[in-house]
């Protein structure tokens, strides 16, 4: 293993450097030059910490307890901080998950890249600028001359991530660490970034340590994969071998949890009553000032949809296409500017908040962010009964019901008196669902309700929603940008772009046989779409099998 670029041996990371409280427990891992190693595993398994310890950037609360991290034979754990500074950006670089926050908001992006050159080379200002511009072009940024002087907030998420990549690669380090670099981006952008990283690796021969929990991404770019669980390595395999024959049960489970892109067959629901119908729903955001002309954004336009009891309607589309706007109009968190919304036959689009109150219980919403959608200062039980008690259910009765609901969503009823921070993200999202169904709604709106969860937890929550829908027969309006998820649970799918509906119909039709260019592009951008993870084989083989079955 003499040519191993990065050799992590028996690495332990403990809270306060305490071997008794290890978070990463004896991890061993090697990357050859030019190779892409994917690090997968559920949230909290120690992926990021491993990466940070290579860079010598562990949070203060944590410290290595044992082992070695050898970069070209030099131990990073014992190197002086001066030496570490010298190695960063020159020998190893890192891209972080959140392109929104990883760049300093008050410095021009070009300068932020140039700073790397300033710190590590003797180039003068002009030469620096030239190098930066070259690099920016290299990562396919448009109008680099003017982009150089932009601030991060003026760039899209994908552009920012490119800036990060340019910054990481400008000194051509042998090792690039990418910690979930695309999780926050929408599919189309994600695809571009993945292509870029692959390209650069091929050109510069950089070794990549790629952290993700998205199996689609793994299928797309990995040479080798390391599966991590609770701080320990489950297995390290070449990608194809792993996807086809996972050795450990955990890896199997992880792969099985990935939703399939193949749409579910539609259910027969046409005879059920309609719970939600919108006609020509439109929303225009006006920002007005006393002294200035307002700016207006048409966020939704002429949205017509119908949702029946027990049915699931998915709304998909890239970021900013107006999905949330539609959802918020339906729940009347904002007032639509045009059109009508009928909930179980009652028009609610323009009635006053007071008149609206009785209808509130019929429509409930679950938000994307499990960390912010529960009030951190209130016991979860109180959060769940808030709605019912508002509608006159006696406290005690509401509490009993809340206990049942907790069990329904797979949590112990005794956990009602705990605070949100005492639950994991997936558990919190389940509590949020329990809160929503505590109102016995006819309609449940889930706005990116599973996007923030890792695959295994996501699978649990999706299953739960399905289960609840079956039991209670509620209509589900499911908003997502993940086509896999849409394919798995939706009867109908609606595709939105720039506030308009571009395609609307049964899931099998829309996703299986897209009519518009836009939908097609969306589907093509889904990473690993050639792979049917749950069945450990490529989609082509599954299709063939299905054909066989049918015939």
């Amino acid at each position: 293993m003499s040519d191993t670029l990065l050799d992590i041996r028996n690495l332990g990371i403990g809270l306060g450097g305490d071997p008794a409280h290890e978070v990463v427990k004896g991890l061993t891992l090697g990357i050859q030059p030019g190779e892409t190693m994917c690090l997968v595993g559920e949230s909290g398994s120690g992926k990021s910490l491993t990466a940070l310890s290579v860079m010598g950037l562990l949070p203060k609360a944590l410290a290595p307890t044992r082992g070695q991290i050898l970069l070209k034979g030099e131990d990073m754990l014992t190197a002086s901080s001066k030496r570490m500074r010298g190695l960063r950006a020159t020998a190893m670089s890192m891209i972080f998950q959140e392109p929104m926050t990883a760049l300093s908001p008050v410095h021009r992006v070009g300068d932020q890249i140039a700073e790397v050159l300033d710190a590590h080379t003797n180039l003068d200002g002009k030469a620096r600028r030239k190098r930066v511009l070259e690099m920016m072009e290299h990562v396919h940024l448009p109008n680099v001359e003017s982009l150089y002087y932009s601030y991060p907030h003026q760039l899209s998420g994908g552009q920012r991530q490119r800036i990060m990549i340019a910054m990481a690669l400008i000194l051509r380090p042998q090792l690039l660490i990418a910690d979930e670099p695309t999780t926050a981006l929408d599919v189309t952008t994600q695809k571009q970034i993945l292509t870029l990283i692959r390209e650069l690796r091929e050109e510069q021969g950089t070794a990549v340590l790629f952290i993700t929990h998205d199996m689609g991404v793994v299928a797309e770019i990995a040479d080798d994969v390391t599966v991590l669980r609770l701080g320990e390595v489950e297995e390290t395999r070449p990608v194809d071998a792993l996807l086809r024959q996972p050795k450990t049960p955990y890896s199997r489970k992880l792969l099985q949890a990935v939703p399939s892109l193949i749409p579910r067959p539609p259910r027969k629901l046409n005879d059920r009553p309609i719970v939600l119908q919108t006609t020509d729903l439109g929303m225009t955001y006006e920002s007005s000032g006393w002294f200035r002309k307002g700016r207006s954004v048409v966020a939704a336009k002429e949205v017509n949809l119908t949702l029946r009891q027990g049915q699931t309607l998915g709304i998909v589309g890239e970021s900013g296409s107006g999905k949330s706007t539609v959802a918020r109009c339906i729940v009347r968190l904002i007032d639509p500017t045009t059109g009508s919304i009928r909930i179980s036959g009652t028009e609610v689009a323009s009635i006053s908040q007071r008149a609206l109150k009785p209808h509130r219980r019929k429509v409930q919403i679950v938000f994307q962010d499990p960390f912010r959608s529960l009030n951190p200062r209130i016991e979860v039980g109180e959060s769940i009964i808030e709605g019912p008690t508002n509608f006159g259910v006696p406290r005690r009765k509401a509490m009993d019901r809340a206990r049942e609901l907790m069990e329904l969503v797979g949590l112990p009823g005794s956990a009602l008196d705990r605070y949100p921070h005492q639950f994991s993200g997936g558990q919190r999202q389940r509590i949020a669902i329990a809160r929503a169904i505590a109102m016995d709604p006819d309609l449940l709106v889930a706005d990116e309700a599973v996007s923030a969860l890792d695959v295994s937890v996501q699978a649990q929550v999706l299953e739960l929603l399905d289960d609840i829908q079956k039991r209670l027969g509620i209509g589900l309006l499911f908003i997502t940008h993940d086509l896999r998820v849409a394919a798995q649970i939706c009867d109908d799918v609606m595709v939105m772009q720039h506030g308009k509906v571009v395609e609307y119909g049964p899931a099998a039709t829309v996703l299986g046989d897209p009519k518009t260019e836009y939908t097609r592009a969306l589907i093509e951008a889904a990473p690993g779409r050639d792979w049917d993870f749950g069945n450990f084989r490529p989609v082509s083989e599954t299709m063939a099998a299905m054909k066989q079955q049918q015939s």
Partner: protein
Amino acid sequence: MSTQAAPSGGSPSRIAQLREIVFSSPIVTFAALMLLLIVLAAIFAPWITPYDPARLSPGTRLRPASDAHWLGTDAFGRDLFSRIVYGTRISLAVGIGAAVAAVLLGLAVGLIAGFFRTLDAILMRVVDGLMAIPNILLAIAIVALSGASIWTVLVAITIPEVPRVVRLVRSVVLSAREEPYVEAAIAAGSSTWRILTRHLLPNTIAPLIVQGTYICASAILIEAILSFLGAGISPETPTWGNIMAEGRIYFQINPGIIFWPGLVLSITILSINLVGDAVRDALDPRMAKRGIDR
């Protein structure tokens, strides 16, 4: 579907929380102890002090510290120690009173301004106006307006502080009302009152504690400055501020008259700030998260 057990451990009791705050560092412990002592001194002033703090004795004025008068006497021959101990009462009352009053008033107005956008514009103009008037000048004018009693001094100190609290609360409310859990509460049909009190109000508590300790400390100081400028509480009623203000011309003859109340004042303000910061840290969600991981 797997039924994961939720992590164990109920919420820590209030007392445990308090204990954790107090013992979070030796300095905070010391500060809390000092505050306790000072509050006790205020409550038990009549039992601690050897003399009536108002009793004049012009014959024995400006005496240095002695066995009879532990810290000496002031220009009226009154016992300095007794006056400082009694002064604790008014000074603390002014500090705490101003903090509580400013926080409550500011909270009410700030919640309203933050939540009801229609009232916001008007309220904010008034608040801006009040904020623009220099606070000491406003205080002097108010004291001159209605005579210097503890109440007017309190009002005079409180009014200029209110706008700052309003702004703080308003900004917290403005950002908190965008939180998904507030929207969820709206979707659950909760009344405006309920949303204000249950969901928005608690968010303001941590910053308000910091602001409150700041107001408390600065009120005690402003009272001293008002006394210095001759617009404070009647010198008949001892406060740390007016003891110092009265004693200032004896600075070179009997420096104790300024030194001792100044020392107590500084220790109090220091302690209030330290304890306030510790409470804030304990309430800060980020800090709290760190606590969980531990």
